[in-house]
């Protein structure tokens, strides 16, 4: 977990615990300035830290709580039991969130909703308790603790910000139809995002910074209504500077708070946000009629409403509306009443208020003709809370202190084992550092239990948070012996009563915390952090195999998609399978990469043996040799390193045996007596390159040519046509050995041809470069990883074969007549190049294909040269795990290996090097015999 987050969780728990404790004390002494100060500090710190970690739901909820505490701290009101209830609920929710953060590193998905709901309840408390105090538009800034800054316009507030919690005046001034739309959307659906009221006052010089506040406003997510105002406008129009921003925006947006905060995150304090009760939208507009409505009509409305005669009420309202001028305030009130009856028929407060406004406007409406919902909102929010089913609210509010509560009995069945668990917790937490927290936690649990069960705690369990006292009191009270550690009961089988749910959550969180801390405390001083560990090679290989199988299994999805489309005609399903495939594909790729990294080894594993080998051989042959090794830390996959070992030993032996001359020869050639061999490794893209170079005699092309001719490996014509490089490469021919007497070292059994074939089998290649008298250089190219290969699928005689993708240059389809017979060779002209054509069917000993029309040619690279391989058809590329041929099949050199395809069939992967080399050789032999 992120270090910062871990720290926050730890700190957060302490803060929440301390705040919860403070709140409980506050209940006894509601005006204690020290308590309030401490509480405010806790909550403020919590908000700050949560803000750093961008835990927006937490910030928005805590912000409201902070504001509440700030008001209380400044003596603007007192927090009653109910207010403390809500605050404690906040602490519970914060604990749940902290647990979630510890578990998953994230807030629970419903955090924003839960947070907004509690924020709403806190807001209701604010509205109710602190309504009299005016707070000129500084609430947001002040509550943030950063001081007040409204930018440059402190002199001229454009709109009334009389109370942070009251709906601003401009909301009431919005067009009635806009307000109505918003109200209706809230009334119709419960799951609408909350409605927020934002005020945005861009800074005066914002235009110079390239800002366009109107554009910002326009893009506001969930923007539902907009008020625009100008401020600080000069008297003289000609003196105006149009590039000084004097705009002010009031926005109503229906959107979750974090989304809004993110949208305005760069606007800083020029934006303030507060929740808006939907009632605030219910305001009459228009001029008063000037005379009271007919008393009989009002009476009817009253009666119908009281008796729940909705239809009669609605029709009466309709008739009255038709009678009145729609521009009057009365008509507006009637329209609102219709809406309330239609959409919120159980909202008595709103309807009664509207009716009263119709009846005796002066009692309800202020001078501007608006309803003061503020004074009514307190009652309103109460009624809403009681009707809610939110679980934390089922904790009954503590009844007034006047009625004494029954005392809690230790064998109250509702308790379950909550109390025993507390004792157990206290026993577990012996370390002083965590004991304090445990004490607080138990204190909180006890108080919650008391509140949840509506009982009072016995005097023995006085309101102390001291762990020792608590433990003793609890044990005595529960009739346990303080000295019997085994007395801790097993966790209960029965679930605790539902009302105790938050309590249980709290109790569970505490032991987890203590364990973690105890662990850390114990370990820190002793063991260092383990940074690497040894795993059995087999285990890693198993894991690698499983990854490989996953890749193959993944490859089954495109087949499935294809079947879904072609066989079952489900195009949409096929598309969705492909989308899923892409996701899995991405993950398996990452997995493969990670797996490969785990299996990477430095080539040093192979290189390390050579100093010894060179030393032994040089002594035996009496050839002083200086070996230099470079790049031994180059890494490659374990299998690659393993496949590297044998060819490399052979190359090294060759260099010492055949490359480096004898002492006498070197002296005669004027060379240093000490021969030099260099062994180097480096990485080149997806390849590991190993180079073995000597400063020996080099390969004599004349000699190889003659030798090959003498051995009947090539004919006279080829003998003269051959370039020097081709002549040098004759050493790779099977049955070729230039040295008259094979030494016991490099031996006769394994020639260079075997070295090349071995490397080619592993998907690599071997180059040689030699200068007579100066030395030879062999370069060995091997793929970094062998576990997964890309192969191209081709069809030959109804059978699917694979060809390693890195050897395929291109695929072409040509009319058959484009193939030319040149003597006994077939060729094709492709982009001004003549390529030899090889028929795959012939190579595999199959009947030639006779389909007239076109031919499918696969242009492959064979030892650097393009060759056109004629196949029946191409198919798509696929990732496979190439398994080498085993047992008797190993002798079939034409196959590089087999692979399992996604549809379960086996794919034979062709070894082009073997397949094409045999072709040429055969041709040449035919040629030869033909001429004789």
């Amino acid at each position, binding site marked *: 977990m992120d270090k910062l987050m871990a720290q926050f969780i730890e700190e957060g728990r302490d803060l929440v615990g301390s705040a919860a404790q403070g709140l409980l004390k506050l209940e006894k002494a509601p005006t204690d300035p020290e308590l309030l100060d401490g509480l405010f500090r806790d909550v403020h710190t919590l908000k700050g830290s949560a803000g750093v970690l961008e835990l927006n739901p937490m910030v928005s909820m805590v912000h409201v709580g902070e504001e509440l505490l700030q008001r209380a701290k400044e003596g603007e009101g007192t927090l009653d039991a109910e207010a403390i209830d809500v605050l404690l609920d906040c602490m519970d929710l914060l604990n749940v969130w902290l647990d979630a953060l510890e578990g998953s590193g994230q807030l629970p998905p419903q955090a924003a909703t839960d947070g907004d709901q509690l924020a709403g309840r806190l807001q209701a408390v604010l509205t109710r308790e602190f309504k009299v105090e005016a707070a000129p538009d500084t609430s947001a800034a002040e509550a943030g603790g950063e001081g007040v800054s409204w930018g440059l316009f402190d002199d001229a507030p454009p709109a009334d910000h009389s109370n942070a919690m009251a709906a601003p005046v401009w909301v009431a001034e919005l067009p009635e139809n806009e307000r109505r739309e918003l109200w209706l959307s809230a009334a119709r659906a419960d799951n609408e995002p909350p409605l927020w009221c934002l005020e945005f006052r861009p800074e005066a010089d914002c235009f110079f910074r390239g800002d366009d506040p109107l554009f910002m406003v326009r893009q506001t997510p969930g923007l539902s209504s907009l008020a*625009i105002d100008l401020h600080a406008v000069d008297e003289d129009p000609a003196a105006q500077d149009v590039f000084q921003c004097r705009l002010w925006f009031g926005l109503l947006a229906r959107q979750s708070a974090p989304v809004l905060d993110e949208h305005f995150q760069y606007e800083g304090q020029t934006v303030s946000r507060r929740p808006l009760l939907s009632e605030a939208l219910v305001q009459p507009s228009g001029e008063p009629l000037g005379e009271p409505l007919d008393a009989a009509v009002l009476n009817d409305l009253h009666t119908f409403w009281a008796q729940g005669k909705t239809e009669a009420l609605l029709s009466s309202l309709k008739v009255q509306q038709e009678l009145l001028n729609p521009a009057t305030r009365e008509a507006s009130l009637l329209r609102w009443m219709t809406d309330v009856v239609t959409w919120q028929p159980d909202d008595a407060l709103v309807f009664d208020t509207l009716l009263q406004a119709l009846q005796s406007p002066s009692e309800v409406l202020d001078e501007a003709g608006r309803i003061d919902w503020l004074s009514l909102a307190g009652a309103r929010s109460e009624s809403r809370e009681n009707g809610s089913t939110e679980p934390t609210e089922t904790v009954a509010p503590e009844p007034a202190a006047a009625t004494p509560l029954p005392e809690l009995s230790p064998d109250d069945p509702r308790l379950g084992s909550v109390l025993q668990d507390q004792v157990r917790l206290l026993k577990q937490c012996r370390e002083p550092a965590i004991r304090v927290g445990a004490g607080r936690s138990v204190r909180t649990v006890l108080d919650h239990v008391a509140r949840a069960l509506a009982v009072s705690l016995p005097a023995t369990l006085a309101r102390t948070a001291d762990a020792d006292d608590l433990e003793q009191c609890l044990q005595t009270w529960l009739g346990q012996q303080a000295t019997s550690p085994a007395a801790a009961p097993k966790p209960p089988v029965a679930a605790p009563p539902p009302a105790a749910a938050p309590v249980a959550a709290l109790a569970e969180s505490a032991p987890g915390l203590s364990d973690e801390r105890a662990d850390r405390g114990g370990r820190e001083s002793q063991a260092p952090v383990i940074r690497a560990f040894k795993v059995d090679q087999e285990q890693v290989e198993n894991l690698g195999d499983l990854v490989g199988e996953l890749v193959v299994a993944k490859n089954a999805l495109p087949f499935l998609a294809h079947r879904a489309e072609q066989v079952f005609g489900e195009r949409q399903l096929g598309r969705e399978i492909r989308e899923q495939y892409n996701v899995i594909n991405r993950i398996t790729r990452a997995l493969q990469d990670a797996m490969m990294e785990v299996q990477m080894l430095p080539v040093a594993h192979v290189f390390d043996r050579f100093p010894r080998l060179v030393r032994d051989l040089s002594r035996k042959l009496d050839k002083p040799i200086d070996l230099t090794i470079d790049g031994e830390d180059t890494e490659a996959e374990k299998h690659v390193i393993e496949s590297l070992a044998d060819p490399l030993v052979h190359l090294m032996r060759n260099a010492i045996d055949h490359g480096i001359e004898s002492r006498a020869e070197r002296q005669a050639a004027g060379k240093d007596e000490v021969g030099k061999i260099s062994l180097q490794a480096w990485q080149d893209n997806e390849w590991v390159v190993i180079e073995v170079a000597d400063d020996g005699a080099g390969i004599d092309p004349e000699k190889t040519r003659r030798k090959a001719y003498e051995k009947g490996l090539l004919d006279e014509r080829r003998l003269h046509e051959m370039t020097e490089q081709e002549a040098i490469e004759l050493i790779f021919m099977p049955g070729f050995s230039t040295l008259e007497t094979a030494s016991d070292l490099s031996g006769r059994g394994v020639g260079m041809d075997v070295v090349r074939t071995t490397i080619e089998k592993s998907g690599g290649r071997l180059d040689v470069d030699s200068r007579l008298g100066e030395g030879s250089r062999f370069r060995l190219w091997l793929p970094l990883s062998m576990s997964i290969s890309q192969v191209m699928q081709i069809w030959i005689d109804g059978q699917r074969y694979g060809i390693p993708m890195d050897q395929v240059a291109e695929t072409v389809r040509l009319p058959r007549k484009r193939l030319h017979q040149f003597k006994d060779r077939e060729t094709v002209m492709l982009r001004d190049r003549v390529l030899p054509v090889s028929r795959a069917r012939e190579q595999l000993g199959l009947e030639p294909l006779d389909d007239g029309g076109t031919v499918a040619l696969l242009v492959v690279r064979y030892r650097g040269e393009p060759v056109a391989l004629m196949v029946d058809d191409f198919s798509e590329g696929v990732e496979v795990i190439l398994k080498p041929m085993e047992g008797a099949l190993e002798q079939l050199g034409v196959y590089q290996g087999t692979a399992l395809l996604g549809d379960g069939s086996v794919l034979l992967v062709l070894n082009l090097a073997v397949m094409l080399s045999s072709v040429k050789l055969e041709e040449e032999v035919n040629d030869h015999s033909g001429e004789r």
Partner: protein
Amino acid sequence: MTIQVKGKLLKLVDSCPVEEAETLYEKLLDKPDVKLDLSGCQHMHSAVLQALLMQPREIKRPPTDAFLKQMVLPRLEIAWRDAQSDHG
């Protein structure tokens, strides 16, 4: 130019950038009886909106852009009405 004057009609077209706010403001001061055609206006920079709010004029053709029409037009109309009643 996204601001065009045709007789007694001042027309805003496309997206009016900040640079044109000053031109617009001067034209508005110049011609107290000009009327506005916002039908071709897709967006106006805040500075342009500000100029229109400082020197409100009667809107002959309302904007067709949804945001301007729903959210901005009513405020421009109120500004124009207020200006009328101030003078009257």
